[in-house]
């Protein structure tokens, strides 16, 4: 990655630059792999890039950074993703 030698507000892409944002989640997306038809809508629509596309077009969710917005569950045509409330931390 090319770095610029200028003192201004340039940010370079880096995983987790703002910490583990998954801790912000109230509702957690749970994927039912048996229902998934590999249409990849959740992968396209996830605003945080936390739906990972695997080689066989199945998907997995990166819970370290998923904020639980629920868009993936909303766009899923076969209702393979459900939103479940996070268990209270003890």
């Amino acid at each position, binding site marked *: *990655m*090319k770095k*610029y*030698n*200028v*003192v*201004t*507000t*340039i*940010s*370079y*892409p880096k995983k987790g630059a703002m910490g583990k944002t998954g801790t912000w989640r109230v509702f957690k997306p749970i994927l039912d792999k048996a229902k998934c038809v590999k249409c990849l809508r959740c992968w396209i629509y996830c605003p945080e890039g936390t739906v990972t596309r695997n080689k066989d077009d199945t998907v997995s969710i990166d819970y370290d950074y998923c904020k639980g917005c629920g868009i993936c569950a909303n766009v899923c045509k076969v209702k393979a993703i459900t939103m479940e409330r996070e268990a209270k931390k003890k």
Partner: protein
Amino acid sequence: MTIMIDTGNYIAAKAAVMARPAVVPAYPITPQTTLVEGIANYVKTGEFKGEYICVESEHSAMCACIGASAAGVRTFTGTSSHGLLLMHEMLHWAALARLPIVMCNINRTVGPGWNIWPDENDSISQRDTGWIQFYCSSNQEIFDTVIQAFKLAENEKVLLPVMINYNAFILSHTSMPVEIPKQKEIDDFLSKYKPRWKLDVDNPITFGNIILPADYEKIRKDMQNSSENAKKLIPEIAKEWKKIFGRYHGDLIEKYRCDGAEYILLAMGAIGAESKVAIDNLRKEGLKVGLARVRTFRPFPKEEILKLGKQADLIVIDRNISVGSEGALFSEVKAALYDKSDAKVYGFIAGLGGKDVPYTDIEKICKKSINGKAKDCEWYNLEGV
């Protein structure tokens, strides 16, 4: 080299096109209109090969400049008065983003009441945006400064946008003969633009992200350092220009008959040119008066003004007023002398709203100061108040 006899605006258009910007976004406003018309005409003749964008406002014009400059190309625009004021937010943005945009601003009165004549309150009120500000006093100086401005702005030690100011109508619509170098000479003087950072799909970055207090302060300090660097570079570029083209308009200030002067007059823009006639006449009368025409208001020529203040008493003419205080140049001249010189400084407000300031009035201003009859900050020749 050829001689072109034309108005300040058409000369600025010629200079801008010869600097080969890739993008010129602009919105017309009196008295800048013929500047952008001039560039539009060069699109028709094929002399301007860049992208000319007709935007819907001056705010959009500066946004488009920022977008183009951030994409890594040379960018130019022009505006005036209320147009400049509408850009205000984006002027800060361009400077903080360290984008070397070059812009001409034609100094015009701020309304209401509606008035299209010269007054420097438009650009003076943009003084804290981080832009370098030049004030020109002839069409030749406009041409030379536009070209030099790109070299200055794009230098990695500066990287600040540059605003070239010149008075409405007195320069913008008055024809003068101007020496125009060959395109190749301009190309040799201004090397091809190499951006110091850019938005690039092959090397993705985010610009203008959240920044915490400690880091934000570093950005402001770097702008300040760069402005100090500009103080050194402006004379260097002026010298280089003189060596190649034989023309020189001064560095941060232009000194005129300051040798042995006991009083030095400070003025900017067209009044600065008119003052030379006044100085010649006063010298003929045996009065030891010189002129220091302030070319750059930002960076402010603090050190040079202190040198003048160690030599002579100073007379300042402002074609602007910081309401609630005094003329902006007057304030800053006094600040430059503080605790280091006991020179007397006389301030005059003159020529607001385009009121003519002929050399005869400038002579009277100087004589009033020399005779000790000037008040602290005087509104020269104001009637009915």
